[in-house]
């Protein structure tokens, strides 16, 4: 029965789905090379003008650099917080464990707009109480993004830890390794796939985040997705496609170089 389905309808379905997923990406990349002044078909010719234009525009260059900076810092902080948390959740025994686990994963379930406005309100209240400004600052933006990265790291590192053999840590202790060295030499390398995958997804989530950041950026410093939205309000030339294409290349490149280290199918 199953074998019959797989013959053609199954393949058609898979092919159709792939096409549906890939077509927008390919179209964006294609359009980014058009020489048209407006995004329209058919192309009147091909050029690199829009890539140069994108780099020349402060909003895009600054947005790209800010997004990169925020994503790198948020991912790093997310790893520092979420890796020990994952260890505690998998290995530890303490009351309220499943509650904490749910709490750490919850940012995944809350819509970005809701989380963004909530964080914004919180920052304002915080500022009123303490006079410390968080909204529209780099630390404030990073903190909000850290919340975004934690669930990805927790989820993927936890999956790696569950599959790892706990007795290798005992073996290292037995051979005279101090617990701290056991962590660096044994535990961390054994969860490397989860670590890399978690870091990668954190980076992507932060780098492409629009809904949350839109509440938290300050005047004159926008992240790349917000710069794109702003630009689209007044322009419809392929510069936006060029920016998006750069984003696609960057993330695609990261996925490809990390592929040997992670088995995504196993992590989920």
């Amino acid at each position: 029965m199953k074998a019959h389905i797989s013959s053609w309808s199954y393949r058609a379905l898979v092919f159709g789905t792939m096409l549906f997923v890939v077509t927008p990406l390919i179209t964006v990349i294609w359009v980014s090379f058009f020489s048209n002044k407006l995004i329209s078909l058919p192309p009147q010719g091909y050029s690199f003008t829009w890539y140069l234009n994108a780099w020349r525009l402060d909003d895009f260059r600054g947005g790209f650099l800010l997004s990169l900076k925020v994503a790198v810092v948020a991912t790093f902080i997310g790893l520092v917080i979420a890796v020990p948390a994952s260890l505690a959740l998998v290995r530890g025994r303490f009351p309220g464990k499943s509650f904490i686990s749910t709490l750490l994963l919850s940012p995944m379930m809350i819509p970005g707009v809701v989380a963004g406005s909530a964080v914004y309100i919180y920052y304002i209240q915080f500022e009123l109480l303490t006079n410390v400004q968080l909204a529209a600052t780099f630390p404030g933006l990073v903190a909000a993004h850290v919340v975004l990265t934690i669930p990805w790291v927790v989820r993927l590192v936890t999956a790696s830890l569950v599959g790892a053999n706990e007795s290798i840590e005992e073996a290292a202790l037995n051979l005279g390794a101090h617990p701290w060295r056991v962590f660096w030499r044994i535990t961390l390398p054994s969860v490397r796939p989860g670590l890399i995958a978690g870091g990668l997804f954190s980076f992507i989530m932060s780098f492409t985040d629009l809904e949350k950041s839109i509440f938290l950026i300050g005047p004159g410093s926008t992240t790349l997705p917000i710069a794109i939205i702003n630009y689209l309000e007044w322009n419809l030339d392929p510069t936006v496609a060029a920016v998006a294409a750069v984003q696609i290349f960057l993330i695609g490149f990261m996925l490809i170089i990390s592929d040997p280290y992670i088995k995504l199918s196993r992590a989920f």
Partner: protein
Amino acid sequence: MSYLKFNDVQKDYEGVRAVSHFDLGIERGEMVALLGPSGCGKTTSLRMLAGFVSVTSGSIFLDGRNITAVPAYSRNTGMVFQGYALFPHMSVAQNVAFGLEMRRLPKAEIGRRVTRALERVRLSALADRLPRQLSGGQQQRVALARAIVIDPAVLLLDEPLSALDARLRHEVRAEIRQVQQETGLTTLMVTHDQDEALSMADRLVIMNQGRIEQIGQPAEVYENPANRFVAEFMGKSNFIGGTVVEAGRFRCAASDTVFSCDTSRFTPGAEALLSFRPERARITATPPDTISGANVLAGELKTATYLGQSIEVSIATAGGQSFNILLPNSDAGLAAGLQPGSALHVSWAPADTRLLPV
């Protein structure tokens, strides 16, 4: 004091006693096996020695030092784990070198000792492989090399052969024993397999429900079990309940038959359990000579099962008790002539009879 000493060690897990009154002394260079069914506390005892499990009460001494509160990483014990627990991201040589690196030895010495340890377990050719590229037997030898290379104060083996197939197990146990004797390492092994324990250890510690049932050399434990648990755990036994009539005489409660045996551990009138090993008894169609002084039981054949090396014969007495007798393969002809229901006599020497507490 012994080189390694457990002093009335106890372990409770959430109020449940896992190990109670564990007293054991092990001499330098000796190989001792903790043997018992799963859940008997043998692994917990080993892990208390390694420092992975805390001691609830009592103390452990190693080479004159009280190590009860010493953390696992400074106890200098070398352990071979049940699943080997090799570091998957390190090569064979790196695995073996790990313990030496933790001891901050000079690089040259680490290299020298790793080479020697790998030679000892015949793995020099595979030094650069990753653990997953090795067979089960080879992984086992890496684990052994990794444990002995640090020259531990005591070598710990946790079910070292359980992950190997039957044929390989035979080979590896001889090899482990050989390495142990060559290095002279004091060794504590945990196993649930009596063959493994009998063939490898100098002394056995039989455990059950957190308690030590008996400590002794392999032959001593097998030939003179302390109680019914040991007799049943170490091989098979036949049991007859009854009372000691007078010195050297025991009466079966069910049939009033009287048997001869050593009753020196009991006073007349005491209840006891008579036991004899299936392979120490013989069967005959006619009653054997009474002159021999053998103990005799009459019954009829229920089943005879061919087991290759031996034939297991099951016999039921008129009183409804059943006994198992193991005949050597050379008696296969005798067994083949028997029909279920044939009248038989089981006989065994008083010297092969043991009297156990009820």
